[in-house]
């Protein structure tokens, strides 16, 4: 600041976008003990660890922003978060998608107060009336005050863009790191598994309108690790939901030993039982089971036998760090961190665009009945994650690291599938790799190391699976 006595332009603001630099936190990385298959409980409650996560993980990873179908036309937008950063995602006039921090560069107020909208021409800040185009640039200021100020450099000012935005088969992601590798490199060969849901039929996918949002007082990693590979909990946690809908417990079927597996690439993970319709069946509508059986037959040409069996199977998936979905149940969700002990959960339903309307409607209701706050499965998840988090406020309690050692000898080196493959879906393997990825983000300040560590895909091809 220099109001008097400074010469020339020395005092003018630099309003170029600022992106954070990554650091190195080897002490935090060591909280994940690969050799003993244990995770130190401080990762769930420590404020220092949490701030490092925002810097190392959420400011660098590709994070889920929106489905293309939510913002079909220029000016259509939705508001979301990347970590704790509030972000606007908006379709441009050239039909590309860009995203911006939802904060006015003047005094910082939010420029967009709503969840979503269509055909907006721009965003006007309620505080002093600065207005921004859908391209993020400053368009105007209220009144004539700034226009009379010769030093005011309007062209320099705009909403800070999310550094990179890209989409994969309908799903839009963004990263704050200008140096992050491409979205495809971030996924690596894990796209092989994403296609089970995103490319199982002609015409692509869409989200059903609206989103259910709720708060859970848990660390974000508990739900993320749950979806990356914890079918184990379904037997106990979800007994009541399974009884209510299916009239019996969760059943992995006769061919479990032969078929079920976990796969992991760069911390992204899927566990599946390849039983064709086990997940879909839990939505409670026989018409959906028929639909998925047909779909699975049709999809053999596109996806091959193995993946066509996974479309509706008992399975779950997390894209590192905090985007998860359930094949067959079609719930897609983000676990937004809100401090070490709180998340905001946002849930959508994905359907194939060309599915008949009554099928889409049954998915909408089926997801509501199972995986929404009043759903018979989701109902019983929250309290587990809350107390798994909260008990670690106990100083003595948090000295004992947790046990992630199910299936230590289960690596499957024969099966020719992309990524790290482990036998059986009842396994902690994907969760170990999820936390290994977490530790890699804590350890490394550069993408060369990040993309060439233990979680990187082993070198092999997927050809045999086709």
């Amino acid at each position, binding site marked *: 600041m220099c109001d008097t006595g400074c010469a020339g332009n020395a005092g003018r603001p630099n309003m170029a976008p600022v992106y954070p630099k990554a650091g190195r936190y080897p002490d935090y990385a060591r909280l994940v003990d690969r050799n003993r298959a244990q995770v130190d409980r401080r990762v769930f409650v420590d404020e220092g660890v949490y701030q490092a996560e925002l810097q190392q993980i959420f400011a660098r990873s590709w994070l889920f922003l929106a489905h293309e179908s939510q913002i079909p036309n220029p000016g259509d937008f939705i508001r979301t978060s990347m970590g704790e950063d509030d972000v606007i995602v908006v379709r441009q006039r050239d039909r590309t998608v860009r995203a911006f921090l939802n904060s006015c560069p003047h005094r910082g107020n939010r420029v967009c107060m709503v*969840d979503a909208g269509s055909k907006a021409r721009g965003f006007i800040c309620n505080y002093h009336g600065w207005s921004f185009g859908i391209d993020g640039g400053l368009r105007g200021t209220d009144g004539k005050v700034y226009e009379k100020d010769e030093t005011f450099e309007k062209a320099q000012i705009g909403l800070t863009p999310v550094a990179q935005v890209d989409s994969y088969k309908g799903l839009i992601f963004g990263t704050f790191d200008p140096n992050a590798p491409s979205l495809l490199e971030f996924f690596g060969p894990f796209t092989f598994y994403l296609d089970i849901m995103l490319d199982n039929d002609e015409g692509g996918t869409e989200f059903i309108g609206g989103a259910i949002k*709720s708060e859970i007082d848990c660390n974000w990693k508990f739900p993320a690790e749950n979806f990356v590979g914890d079918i184990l909990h379904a037997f106990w946690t979800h007994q*009541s939901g399974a009884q*209510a809908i299916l009239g019996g417990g969760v059943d992995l079927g006769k061919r479990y030993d032969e078929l079920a597996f976990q796969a992991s690439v760069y911390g992204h993970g899927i566990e599946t039982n390849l039983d064709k319709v086990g997940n879909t069946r839990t939505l409670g509508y026989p018409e959906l089971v028929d639909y998925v059986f047909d779909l699975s037959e049709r999809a053999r040409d596109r996806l091959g036998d193995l993946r066509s069996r996974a479309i509706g199977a008992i399975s779950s998936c997390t894209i590192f760090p905090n985007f998860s979905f359930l094949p067959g149940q079609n719930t897609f969700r983000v676990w937004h961190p809100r401090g070490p002990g709180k998340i*905001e959960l946002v*849930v959508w339903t994905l359907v194939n665009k060309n599915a008949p309307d009554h099928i889409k409607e049954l998915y*909408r209701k089926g997801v509501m009945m199972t995986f*929404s*706050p009043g759903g018979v499965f989701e109902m019983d998840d929250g309290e587990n994650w809350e107390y798994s988090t909260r008990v670690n406020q106990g100083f003595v309690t948090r000295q004992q690291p947790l046990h992630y050692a199910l299936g230590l000898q289960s690596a499957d080196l024969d099966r020719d599938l992309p990524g790290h493959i482990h036998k059986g879906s009842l396994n902690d393997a994907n969760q170990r790799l999820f936390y290994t990825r977490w530790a890699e983000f804590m350890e490394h300040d550069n993408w060369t190391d990040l993309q060439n560590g233990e979680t990187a895909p082993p070198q092999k091809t997927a050809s045999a699976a086709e």
Partner: protein
Amino acid sequence: MLDLLDISKPFADLDAPVDLETERAITRWLHAEVRLLDAERYQEWLTRCIDPDIRYWMPDMETRRRDDPRGMFAYGEAAYFDDSWKELEIRVKRYNEPSAWADNPQTRHLHQISNIEVNATEDPTLFAVHSVFTNVRNRNEADQDIVHGRREDVLRAGPGGYRLLRRRVFIVQNVLLSKNLNTFF
């Protein structure tokens, strides 16, 4: 179908208040209904209070600009409840399982109902009832969830008394400030 029974349609202006006796009877019914819910007598609630043709809807509430034609909610999009009898029955079945962990140990429930307005409709057996509620759920030592909202009910008078035929529930929260909804409204 009467507009009144279309779950996607709001009540028109309610300007046909019923006589005191009917109002008293329906008010009593509403109080008795939530007493069953507070006592977790869900099966009884279903069989005694709910009409087999029930439509029970609670949409997600969004924050939108005033000039947004979609408004705060839209029928056919995401909802907490959009139930017929079949869906309500599944939810009740879960409550009745001993392994419904979110309800074991038991939750302490309270529904407070007020602002009750009872209106006659063009069908003498149907009543349009508006009310507001406060729902408090408390569990374990200090886990507390509070939900406020309003309801637009259609009650049908029959031989066995009143039954709920349609209910639209509008809560005031956008992000549900709770981990779950282990109750009905």
